[in-house]
């Protein structure tokens, strides 16, 4: 009976420290890479800029799966009783979206692109409503990479 309590507390502490460490590290990396790839332009618009030179168009994408930690899950569970902003999940999704876009940009840069247009995001939850399972979220970012034609 008490064992349950101790295991629960231990998992909570473990989840909190490792989850927070991972999140801090991830955000640091995201901010640094976003700065690095800012020269590669991304647009959500479907149409190309009207005065664009002839360019090669190719599909690029980047996806990421991030798992929540035990602490986030419990915090969200408590939040679901009273309602309101689930801040622990907000930061998780923010990380997933930005990471997916970054991976898409890395793919575009590898192809020598200077611009990605028609960028879209898809989100899915991998463990949908499975009671005892730790949930994770997948975000997939994709778009059309435009590379200048070298003649």
């Amino acid at each position, binding site marked *: 009976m008490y064992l349950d309590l101790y295991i*629960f507390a231990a998992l909570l502490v473990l989840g909190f420290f490792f989850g927070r460490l991972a999140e801090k590290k991830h955000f640091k990396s995201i901010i640094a890479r976003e700065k690095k790839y800012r020269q590669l*332009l991304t647009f959500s618009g479907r149409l190309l800029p009207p005065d664009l030179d002839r360019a090669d168009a190719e599909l690029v994408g980047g996806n990421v799966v991030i798992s929540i930690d035990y602490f986030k899950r419990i915090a969200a569970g408590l939040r679901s009783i009273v309602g309101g902003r689930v801040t622990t999940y907000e930061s998780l999704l923010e990380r997933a979206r930005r990471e997916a876009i970054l991976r898409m940009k890395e793919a575009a840069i590898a192809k020598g692109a200077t611009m990605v247009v028609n960028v879209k995001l898809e989100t899915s939850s991998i463990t949908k409503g499975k009671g005892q399972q730790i949930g994770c979220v997948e975000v997939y970012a994709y778009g059309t990479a435009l590379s200048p034609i070298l003649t």
Partner: protein
Amino acid sequence: MTKYENRHIPEGINVSEEHPLKEFLILAFGLGAITALVVLLLSLMAGWLVHFIPFSLEKSLATSSFSTSTSSDVVLTNEQLEIEGYLQLLANKLSAAQHLPDGMEVVVHYVDGDTVNAFATLGGNIIMYRGLIEALPHENALAMLLSHEIAHIKQRAPIVSLGRGVAVGLALASLSGFGDSSMSHQLIGNVGLLTSLTFSRHQEEQADIEALQTLENYYGHAQGAESLFEILSEGDYALKPPKLLSTHPITEERINRVRHFNGSHVGLASYKPLPEFLVNISQGLD
């Protein structure tokens, strides 16, 4: 070509700057306090309502379960019947000394098991294990044990616990149904558990006090009662869980209560020995 750029988006739009632990603690303690309050109220209400169930009804509820469990399956030997008869006789005398209300009577069941335990249950039934009886040094300690269990019957503790358990269990089951995380259910469940255990500890304290008074009435003094708790604190069965998680008051507290009680009721310490046949079972097994 027109000049395009992706401007830097400031941080903190989608992510709250607030420390996650702060939100968690507010929620956990807030919900914990509400749950504890609900459990407390329900326990009080259930405990109060249960007193309106007549003892005869409780007895008839218990009879159906008792005829199938302890008594009828096991055929007692003559020796065991003698012990049970002796225990019943002592219990009857102690019931009189404790002024058990009319219509309320206790039935003692002797169980030939090594378990160091005794407990009172629904319908005035008291279960005594050989394991505990054979460890007791004299009749005074045995009388303390019986009086403690009779006091539980008198305060209607078994039916009160049952009523509380049902009311609180139902309430928590419906409350935890709102959260979608099964771990939050566990959290709520544990708060409920701790609260209900604290309740029964109060009942135990009351039963100890009542039992001491009974010994005073029966023997003229309550000395020797602490032997029971000394026995309980010795040996392998002396589990010492943290106070918060224990249903029974911790042994030192109980022994101190006996000493305190005896301090104000000074009498001559003459312990009544246990009858021969009870001494024999303990010696035969040592």
